[in-house]
């Protein structure tokens, strides 16, 4: 239930320098072209000094142009649109549901079906932690609606390619093929 009808959100992953202002630069480009960031997850990557970001952006147009623009940012080491690739994606949700003596076991049953964990139980409420892809979480939330959701918090999506392939290939050392222009302008 992404709220954007038929429009398919894009999943974009990026490896970026772990520095202040990086998010600002990236977000600024999305804003400029009118993309709404539906979710965003940032954390350390396997490479020191580099963070890994996963964006989900709504798009009624091709995001290719923006991705190219983002790739030009000095702080963006590598970026790719994995919307059409074979990926594993997960998000995490915590749902605080109203639950008393009568309803508690029903809620726990639902949680179990969704392989979700109960992380906090109080006399009138219960917190369920669930992990899965977006659809999985959506379904769980849907079912829990019956029991009055007090609070819902979801992380952004994180995604990586299936199989042995690296999502962000290591940069190979490139030979400097570029010749700086001479100082004088002559025909």
């Amino acid at each position, binding site marked *: 239930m992404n709220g954007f009808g038929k429009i398919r959100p894009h999943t974009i992953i990026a490896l970026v320098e772990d520095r202040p*202002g990086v998010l600002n630069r990236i977000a600024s480009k999305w804003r400029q072209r009118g993309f709404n960031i539906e979710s965003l997850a940032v954390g350390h990557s396997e490479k020191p000094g580099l963070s890994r970001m996963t964006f989900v952006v709504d798009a009624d147009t091709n995001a290719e142009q923006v991705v190219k623009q983002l790739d030009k940012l*000095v702080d*963006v*080491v590598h970026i790719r649109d994995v919307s059409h690739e074979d990926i594993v994606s997960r998000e995490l949700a915590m749902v605080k549901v109203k639950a008393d003596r009568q309803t508690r076991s029903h809620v726990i049953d639902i949680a179990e079906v969704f392989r979700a964990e109960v992380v906090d139980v109080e006399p009138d409420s219960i917190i369920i932690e669930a992990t899965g892809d977006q659809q999985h979480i959506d379904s769980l939330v849907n079912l829990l609606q019956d029991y009055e959701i007090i609070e819902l918090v979801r992380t952004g999506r994180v995604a990586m390619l299936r199989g042995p392939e690296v999502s962000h290939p290591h940069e190979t050392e490139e030979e400097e093929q570029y010749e*700086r222009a*001479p*100082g004088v302008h002559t025909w």
Partner: protein
Amino acid sequence: MVMEAFLREGVDTIFGIPGGANLPLYDVLEAGGVGIRPVPEGVEPKESPIRHYLVKHEQCAAHAADAYARVTGKAGVCYGTSGPGATNLVTGIANAFMDSVPLVCVTGQVISALIGRDGFQEADIQGITIPITKHNELVRTVDEIPRAMQEAFYIATTGRPGPVLVDIPRDVLQHKGKFYWQDKVQLRGYKPYTNGVNGDELAKAVELIEQSERPIILSGHGVIISHAYAEVRELAEKANIPVITTLLGISGFPGTHPLYLGMPGMHGMYWNNIAISEADLLIGVGMRFDDRVTGRLKDFAPKAKIIHLEIDPAEIGKNVKPTATLRGDARSSMRELNKHVTHRERGRWFQWLEEMRRDHPSIVIRETDEVLPQYVIQQIYEATKGNCYVCTGVGQHQMWAAQYFWYDKPNSFITSGGLGTMGFEVPAAMGAQVAAPNDTVWSICGDGGFMMTLQELATIAEYQWPIKFAIVNNNVLGMVRQWQELFYKNNLVATPLKNPDFVKLAEAFGILGLRAQKKLDVKPVIETAMSHPGPVVIDFQVKYDENCYPMVPPGASLDETIDQPEYAYQPKRVSDERKVAAR
């Protein structure tokens, strides 16, 4: 530290204004703004003196550095203090960003402890300039200064050039630190050298050129930036293809070359716009198929396949879908291409072009006693024979300067293309004159634009730069008036200008002021200006309601170009004469 970085980068010119936050940058300059003290070890100050020029508004510092960079090919450097000093640079930075000009802007920032606390003269200039810089950085410790400066120059000048802003708090500037310098800048996220002339694409491009019967080269700013003058000429001559230059590509190809066709687009030559619509192949070199070039995009070049030579991957496929793409800087890409192209006679194509030019001359100057702006430009050309730099602002005068002047000196046309910044003409002429002190610099000004930056006449008078300002004065914001006339039922709101007496104004600054009110005045006034050793301001009182043609109405396609409406009188057309002479 900043200064030492400048010396290592070969900086010799800074434009700027001091203020509270960037005073430490000034404290190392010798009195008068020449040289630095103390002299860093191993640097001979006389070999690379750094000269600072005090301008009157930071916008002009950025524009002057911009023009300086365009003329020299080096990064232009400008200074601004925190807050308003930095925000005043913004227009200049955006201008350089749109036109891919290497600029290093160093701004002072309030002291670290005050950042984010609304300190006096604080502005988040890093945040403000994110969308208009290639990169920017707020330096937080003194040890980062050398790295930040080295990276700034590297990023600004490599790949597709652009402006870089380095913001340094005053306390960081005042700290002592150890200077270091890397042999080679390594940035994980910035690889400007991916020069990939792909073999398959190259073969495809060569085949397209060989098969093409009606090809055109569209030569852009990239040709000038990468100094690909010889290469584009070789491509044109070897493969026998006519050349059109975009506005910023003007003076990237000899203006009197027989294969040269002039400018395309909104105010381009009629024959060019029709030719693009008829062409079966467009070779775009270092240009980005901007909307002012293409007209209505969906009807742009309907019969043509496109080869795109471009350094910036984000430009490839942005506006048009190329059949073949050569990625890399214009010079090396064309060198590869030139190895394989062969001569092909294209008699019918050239004959067709010839007929188009005969039937639709586009640039004609009517016989009248009034001062026509086109005549003014043409007379400046006649007086200089193109051996000068021409700086322009934005508007009608800019288009006339692009149409009625034959740029035979490489990289001699300095104009604000992408951003279209009125007022660019005055500071740009300063930058060009500093970059080329022995050359003549003509600044062709609109009266509207001139009024935006004329405070710099004080700077020009101070340094006695012998710039010739030709104000194409129609007492109106001409291009806007033209749009009002053509598209807004002649509702002339807020366009007529009540200008000052430009001659008296020039004199108030201690500059020679001249005026031409009749056609007969034009020539002698230009001659007087040329023989005057110092700066000159000429007020050319031109016809109020002259329109700039040809014109593609906004939203129309190139084949809907409106040509010059009047052919009552066709004077000797310089273009034809030159063409004949050149052959």
